[in-house]
């Protein structure tokens, strides 16, 4: 599988990328992150040369919920539980991050003592992140084991149809949008890889190992970055940051360094407009990829 990650497509580069790959055959597309606007993909279709086969994952999801009320009720409860987990995670994270920042600010006359305390506080933050991801995974696995969505009539039919489209496709293109919805429907319909995968923004985030949510420009100012869930894992070793300069206070190097520490050992990769990253084996980043260093500064990968 060849994976290409793009920057946000406000000024599309997708058409040039698709042309450069010389793909033959239809291209499966996912616009489920756009939710109700999923079918509004005429412009998208033109960018892939009129060869798109939209997997319509959002519409299929809504169809499953409508045709299988028992599953729909269970899924609603599951999503409410995940939301509560996320809220509790933020409460815990707030305490752990406050501790870390207070320790880092602490003056004192013995830097080695403070550095050791800092390392401990960082470990607490990482533990909170890890435990949260583990709890989410457990909740998801328990739900899937209990309800086996893939074996239920409504979802199973859609899975088969999705697989047929993918089997005939030369590539898979995943657009951005709501990353939570994308993750959910990609899993629900067991979307598999294609020979070539192109993704951007939320679409690319969903393919990583861990999805990190971030937004420093919210009405109330910077919010804590928070891990949402594991992704599909097709892009290992990276935490992707689309719109980084628009959404993050990238000039706050202490804050950026904190982010890098939480993402480690994965690299924080900046995906701004115009970026194209042709990933190598096991998600290896090409030279020139923009990443955030341990000092919190953005720089080019050598």
């Amino acid at each position, binding site marked *: 599988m060849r994976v290409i990650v793009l920057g*946000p497509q*406000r000024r599309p580069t997708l058409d040039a990328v698709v042309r450069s790959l010389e793909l033959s055959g239809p291209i499966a597309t996912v616009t489920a*992150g756009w*939710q*109700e606007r999923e079918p509004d993909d005429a412009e998208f279709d033109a960018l892939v040369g009129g060869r798109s086969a939209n997997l319509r994952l959002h519409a299929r999801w*809504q169809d499953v*919920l*409508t045709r299988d009320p028992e599953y*729909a009720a269970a899924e*609603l409860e599951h*999503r*409410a539980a995940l939301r*509560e987990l996320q*809220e509790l995670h933020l409460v815990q994270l707030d305490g752990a991050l406050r501790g870390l920042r207070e320790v880092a600010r602490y003056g004192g006359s013995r830097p080695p003592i403070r550095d050791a305390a800092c390392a401990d506080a960082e470990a607490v933050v990482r533990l909170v992140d890890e435990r949260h991801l583990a709890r989410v995974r457990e909740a998801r696995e328990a739900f899937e084991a209990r309800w086996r969505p893939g074996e239920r009539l409504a979802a199973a039919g859609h899975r088969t149809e999705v697989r047929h489209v993918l089997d005939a496709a030369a590539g898979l293109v995943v657009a*951005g*949008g*709501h*990353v*939570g919805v994308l993750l959910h429907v990609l899993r629900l319909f067991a979307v598999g890889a294609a020979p070539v995968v192109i993704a951007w*923004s*939320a679409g690319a*985030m969903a393919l990583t190992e861990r999805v990190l*949510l*971030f*937004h420093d420009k*919210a*009405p*109330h100012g910077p*919010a804590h970055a*928070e891990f*949402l869930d594991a992704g599909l894992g097709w892009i290992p070793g990276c935490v992707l940051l*689309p*719109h980084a300069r628009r959404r993050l206070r990238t000039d706050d190097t202490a804050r950026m360094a904190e982010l890098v520490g939480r993402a480690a050992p994965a690299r924080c990769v900046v995906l701004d407009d115009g970026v194209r990253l042709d990933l190598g084996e096991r998600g290896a980043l090409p030279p020139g990829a923009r990443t955030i260093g341990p000092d919190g500064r953005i720089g080019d990968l050598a």
Partner: protein
Amino acid sequence: MTRLAINRLKERRPDAASIDRFLARHEVPIVEGDRCTFLWRGEADEVFLVQRIVGLPERLPLRRLWGTDLWYLVLELPAGSRINYQVEVRRGEHTERGNDPLNPKLSYSPVGTSSVCFAHGYVTPDWTEPDPDARSGELTELVLQSRALRRDCRVTLYLPARFRHTASYPLLVVHDGGDFLQYAAAKTVLDNLIHRLDVAETVVAFVHPQDRLAEYSNSAAHARFLTRELVPRLEAELPLVGQRSGRCLLGSSFGAVASLATAYRAADVYGSLVLMSGSFVFTDIGAVDHGGGPVFDPVVRFVNRYRDRPRRVADRLFVSCGVYEPLIMPNRSIVHTFESTGMTVRFVETRDGHDWENWRDTLRDALSWVYPGPQKLVYE
């Protein structure tokens, strides 16, 4: 610094015609940097600007421009301010108070209209204006026969655009619902903030009071209506979260008292409260005159009791107040009482008065904090 328009006029020793031209050229009040010039024209013995800014005398005298019938007052107002005022004119024994005839801008409050001055830097937020790109939510009318209030209660229900029965929504109950819809553009604001992903898709119940001063001043019957009748019915009929984290009461002025008093009686029911310009009047020494008149008596008793024995009534409280309101001191004071119970409190002060525009302009801060939208989840 450029001389003020009124000073330039003064130097010209104006006649009636030049004053006519001056008034035609300028919006009143004339805002020049942080100076606002208030004007009144006519024959009178005294003219006053009447306002309720804490720390300023309630009546500020205007001066007559020598040899003319033009009266003026220059007031320094901090950037971003919005103040409400009226003009009082005395002719002999007769005094008359009303809105500024030279200023068409009006502000609405629970006690009527007043003239409004937008100081330098105040901009009406764009999210309060209709946005053609924002999908429109739906308003429907609901009537509940309330045993608690012994009357039919009208509720206007807001369902967000793209409302689906396969999703679940948090619930917001808004006191003085009709006024919030009419004077605080609540539907437009909700449509816009949901469209911009600032606020989660939310079902909103706008309740309409009958006798708000009675029902909203710590009334057990009103609390029963909300907690035992309205919320259970909505949760039975609509796909709502149905848990404390998904229930919020919002109110301004007496509506804020009603929100707090309702949550006080049902401490496990509501996760959040939005208390705007709450009429949290109290007395430190029991039976002294609190200055609010008899309608405030039950409020003062309730607030005094709450301050004596504060308790957690919700998880999160958004509290706001205009710094020009007489209620700013009670609000600043009660924030510490709320915090002492372990509730998470966000307190916002605005350079504004006790009116619907203040509460409208605060809605984004309040709602995006109580029910944040999916901004963090969306990467286009």
